């Protein structure tokens, strides 16, 4: 079997906080009150959802008008397996829905109790509101047919967080919404290159594996796959020692979220003996004030039973006590 590169799940997410401005702000505020607003365009058409500028004339728009919570399906498509985050979490229809009083169609979900034969173009549908509207497009939980709506409530994706909470106990539902929170979570499979994979597998054995560019002779660790100077694949493997020098460094004094070491501590570029590209690592084992450019250092490895395919097998670098490297020997690596 040919050599396979390493890969691992990469799950990323962020709750985007978005200012909505005056037009969408009024739309979101109305949703929190279980009302839908559209905006009147230059040609008199009512756009739902509202647009801030007319699509034809680019004129700024600000005349918001109430439209109905009921409308007509203009087109639809069927989703047998809902994706994460989609409004309805059982088989449902996506639909373009023209609300009564609107001239454009809103894209949203229609729940028919999982039944594809219960949706059609021209069908009358109405909004099923979220239990606790917060001023967000998801306050419209989904639509249901006006005639014969499903008997049960559809399972839904988790509600987005409220950007602003009303004052407790005041029952104030008129506060205007100026922000929406839109969580984004994505899942990838991240693949290392074959060269990186060999480097990572070697790390699991406590070895430091770089590669030499066949054109310019430079040694890269981690290996790059292609020499960034020459643009040719790097092929020749070079095993490197766990000793080297500090080329440049900084003293971290500022605490931050997720920090593992108490400041102050030193982050440094470490140039291994025989390598041409330094990498970032920690220098511990001496006072931060003692760290200097050209200082000789050696890797402090974690206990062997903690090793895996990561540079974190090296806990940090620490001074060897040898004489510093002269500046001229690393000036071109800065």
């Amino acid at each position, binding site marked *: 079997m040919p050599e396979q590169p390493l890969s691992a799940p990469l799950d990323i997410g962020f709750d985007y906080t978005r200012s909505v401005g005056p037009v969408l702000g009024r739309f979101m505020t109305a949703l929190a009150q279980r009302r839908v607003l559209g905006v009147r365009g230059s040609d008199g058409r009512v756009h739902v*959802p509202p647009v801030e500028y007319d699509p034809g004339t680019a004129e700024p728009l600000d005349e918001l008008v109430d439209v109905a919570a009921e409308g007509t399906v*203009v087109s639809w498509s069927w989703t047998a397996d809902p*994706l994460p985050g989609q409004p309805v979490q059982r088989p449902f229809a996506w639909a373009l829905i023209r609300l009564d009083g609107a001239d*454009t169609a809103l894209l*949203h979900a229609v729940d028919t109790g999982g039944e594809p034969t219960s949706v059609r173009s021209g069908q009358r549908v109405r909004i099923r509101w979220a239990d606790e509207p917060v001023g967000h*497009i998801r306050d419209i939980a989904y639509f249901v047919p006006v005639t014969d709506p499903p008997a049960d409530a559809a399972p839904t994706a988790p509600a987005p967080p409220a950007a602003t909470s009303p004052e407790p106990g005041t029952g104030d539902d008129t506060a205007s919404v100026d922000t929406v929170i839109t969580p984004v979570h994505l899942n990838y*499979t*991240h693949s290392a290159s074959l060269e990186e994979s060999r480097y990572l597998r070697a790390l699991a054995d406590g070895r430091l594996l770089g590669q030499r560019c066949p054109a310019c002779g430079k040694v890269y660790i981690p290996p790059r796959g292609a020499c960034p100077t*020459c643009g040719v694949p790097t092929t020749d493997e070079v095993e490197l020692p766990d000793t080297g020098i500090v080329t440049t460094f900084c003293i971290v004094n500022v605490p931050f979220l997720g920090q593992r070491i108490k400041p102050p501590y030193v982050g440094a570029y470490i140039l291994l003996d025989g390598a041409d590209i330094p990498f970032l690592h920690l220098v511990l084992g001496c006072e931060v004030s003692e760290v200097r450019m050209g200082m000789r250092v050696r890797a402090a490895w974690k206990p062997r039973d903690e090793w895996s395919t990561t540079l974190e097998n090296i806990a940090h670098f620490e001074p060897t006590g040898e004489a510093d490297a002269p500046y001229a020997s690393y000036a071109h690596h800065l």
Partner: protein
Amino acid sequence: MTEVAVVAFAQAPNVRRTHGTTNGVEMLVPIFDEVYTRTGLSKADIGFWCSGSSDYLAGRAFSFISAVDAIGAFPPIHESHVEMDAAWALYEAWLKIRMGEVDTALVYGFGKSSAGDLRRVLSLQLDPYTVAPLWPDSVSIAALQARLGLESGRWTEKDLAEVAARSRRDATGNPRAQFGGETDVAALLDADPVADPLRRHDIAPVTDGAAVIVLASAERARDLADRPAVIGGIEHRIDTPSLGARDLTTSPSTRLAGEAVGTDGVEVAELHAPFTHQELIVRDELGLGDAVRINPSGGTLTGNPMFSAGLARIGEAAQRILDGEATRTLGHATSGPALQQNLVTVLERG
């Protein structure tokens, strides 16, 4: 102003999944080699570099920076990037040559769609306030568009299956296509819909891939290719992002771009249509009659490398001229949901 010509085109094999990284280097290095060999150019001869790719596809920030490793960017190069299909990078490169700033440019696009869930990632190109928070996927949105045409009588399911069958048949002649073969329209129509009304054959596959085009001023082009494909016109237009505010069975942006470049006399057209019905829309808006050969490469329905599929359409259209098979061809690229943005270029025998 300086005329600009395509002098070489290459694309990586269209495949469902590569083992490579999301920075595209593994796909780009070999195709850069191909165009260097064909033109006799080396990286030092390239005046301007421009790429198209997406961090959303890669799942990490500034992923295109790592791709620059494939170039060997030393001494420093003159480089730019668009977070769009590389057809738009080609537009930027075309302008650079037109303005006389450079006389050669290398344009590339790449994407590893298989790293994530493509149709879900693509929902993030939608309006971030009122649409994207619902996570409508790209296939479902295209299905809404397809149904509008089916129910208005604009096209039939059989029309769509015929587009798919022709594409697969043509792809058998394209060694870099993801798949191809003889298919029976009736058999295609027997399959159940996967996103009613769309069937599997209506939807472009998920593809990892990359493509590269070398442009040169018309004067330089004569030394680099026997039959350079001169860009007779290139235009791009955009429609409103508000999906419910436009007639999705039409594409005014395609029509306007086509009118601006002039599509008369085109013999071959490569259209970037990731869904069968979109080919019919684009073809109609460009006024391409029955005599025009559509997508002899098999088109996007047999290989849809995100961020290079549009560039590859221009490359395939240019290749017909480079090979001496045609004298006037058309390349089309699209971007955004339901054909929102469109670029049209006409290529001519110099």
